[in-house]
């Protein structure tokens, strides 16, 4: 059993939905990331999605692009990111951490090496934005050999046949991208997302979470009504942008936002 499946099982038992915040490793400074990860867990995060900085984050909107640039001014690498997870694991053995990013740093490091280092550090899964399963066959073998989960995205443009294929390929959970667009794009039509989500649910045997367009307690709670979890990215990363010269203010504000979402989600799912 992976840490991710354990976590979803536990949430189900408590009748709760997963809150999955995203931060970019090394944003705004490398020594800050582990602290903010712990703070998010304290305030109610169930799974941490840690962005691996990349120079060409093709699928990201402006907010997260700039976060990658901030991290890269400190040359934060894939190796450094994995090291941060190892540090996080020293005092948190239970919260799943997944690495989200682009394939090139992994190509450069080598699949086997990546899988081994990630496993040793306590990483639980990878979610690669620009690797549909067809392009990730060998990487997947390396990751599964180490017991790591591979998470794939399902998009609003995905056909039913392909959705079934993607859901079958995903391990840990499936990630439904709620809108056509980059991260941090405009408000989503929650009714449409719900309808599409409910249609796609038939294809997955594992939990399915929703990402993109979730920015506050209200939207997180709305998603919690139908999905197994909510991923929050740009809304959190925006706090980093607003306070990049004052990391302590970031910890506090991120904690507050996570707490607001946790509370709102729990009211819906438990209530």
């Amino acid at each position: 059993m992976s840490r991710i499946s354990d976590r979803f099982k536990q949430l189900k038992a408590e009748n709760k939905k997963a809150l999955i915040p995203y931060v970019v490793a090394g944003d705004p400074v490398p020594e800050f990331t582990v602290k903010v990860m712990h703070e998010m867990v304290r305030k109610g995060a169930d799974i941490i999605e840690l962005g691996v900085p990349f120079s060409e984050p093709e699928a990201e909107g402006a907010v997260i692009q700039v976060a990658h640039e901030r991290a890269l001014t400190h040359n934060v690498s894939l190796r450094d990111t994995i090291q941060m997870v190892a540090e996080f694991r020293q005092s948190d053995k239970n919260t799943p951490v997944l690495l989200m990013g682009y394939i090139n740093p992994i190509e450069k490091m080598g699949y086997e090496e990546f899988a081994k280092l990630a496993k040793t550090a306590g990483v639980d899964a990878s979610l690669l934005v620009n690797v549909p399963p067809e392009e990730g066959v060998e990487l997947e073998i390396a990751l599964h050999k180490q017991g790591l989960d591979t998470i794939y995205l399902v998009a609003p443009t995905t056909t039913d046949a392909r959705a079934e294929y993607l859901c079958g390929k995903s391990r840990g959970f499936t990630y439904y991208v709620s809108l056509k667009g980059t991260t941090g794009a405009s408000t989503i039509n929650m009714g449409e997302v719900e309808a599409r989500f409910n249609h796609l649910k038939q294809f997955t045997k594992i939990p399915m979470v929703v990402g993109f367009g979730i920015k506050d307690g209200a939207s997180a709670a709305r998603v919690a009504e139908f999905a197994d979890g909510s991923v929050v990215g740009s809304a959190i990363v925006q706090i980093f942008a607003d306070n990049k010269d004052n990391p302590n203010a970031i910890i506090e504000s991120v904690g507050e936002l996570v707490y607001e979402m946790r509370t709102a989600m729990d009211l819906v799912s438990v209530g």
Partner: protein
Amino acid sequence: MGKAIGDNTEVSSMPTADGRYGIYGGRYVSEVLVAALDELRDAYGRLKSDPGFVAEYERDLKNYVGRESPLYFAERLTQEMGGARILLKREDLNHTGAHKINNCIGQALLAKYMGKPRVIAETGAGQHGVASATVAARFGLKCRVYMGSDDIERQSLNVYRMKLLGAEVVPVTTGSKTLKDALSEAMRDWVANVDDTYYIIGTVAGPHPYPMLVRDFQSVIGKETKKQCLADYHQLPNAIVACVGGGSNAMGIFHPFLEDDEVRLIGVEPAGKGIETGMHAAPLSKGEVGVLHGNKTYLMQDEDGQILPTHSISAGLDYPGVGPEHSWLKDIKRAEYVSIDDKQALHAFRQLNLLEGILPALESAHALAYGAELASKMSKDEIVVINLSGRGDKDIPTMAKIDGISIS
């Protein structure tokens, strides 16, 4: 079997069904784009041999682009170099002044047949942007062009041209503010507007099927060259030289010759300030395999797999990647890849003005520099074809600046 776009030699059986050229190519994209790429692949697969589509494409190449382009004997340059006969494939004489239009006509027609009212494009030197804006006007499509803000400064003439053509030019201020960033931004636009938007990629890179379809549309260059060379000189060229940024003009002229083993195919990358300085844009000469903008190919990257900034005097070659088929041709040693630095390109630029009365694009000047040197070492009964991929009007401000001359 009727006519089809592209050609069907045995080597051209690449790519495989999943878009691979050996280990290169593929489709490394966000899931949102998978359906759009499937749609494009299927539409192109159907239309490339559709008589109506092929006829419309060929009619526009003839009457709108002005093809075929001459294969010109550069007599004085040949004399100066004292070796092989130098022939210039005059893509600079195409409508809009470069080879880019061959591809844009094809893709705008695809957009039209696929019922997409809006096109987007990325551009470096502005040539592809101008060509895209041009065909958008020609076919009544809405057009937005993404261009790095540094390139906008270097190529103000083309920026204004695009605006005259009714296109919206959007400056990209992220990353290095050049072609690679414009490409990323165009991909973001496509992800968000995939229902009504066709993305006209300007080179033989990007996710499958782009490298294949851009190559097919550009292969008209090589097909004409072969026919013209045989008709006028009763032999195939001994060498073909073309500049390589993303690599579309090179792939277009190389491809119909892939199975003619006696024809040397030479791609010229920009060495910028010198390969050894690191300030270049020559991934095939000094790069490593990686994944960028939807395909696996040779890239300029650091030890962490981050993409490196590039440098070239020519904005159109200023790209850290290269089309995947070039990477494959390099590995199987069917094509050779060399590099020419800024200084050598500038020399060739001036030389062609003085000896032939032709103003080449700085991009093409890289091919000229290598091709002329090569010719000087070959015998007089041999032939070197240099692909003169574009004209240099756009580069006049850059040149004037180098010469310290103020023009307004």
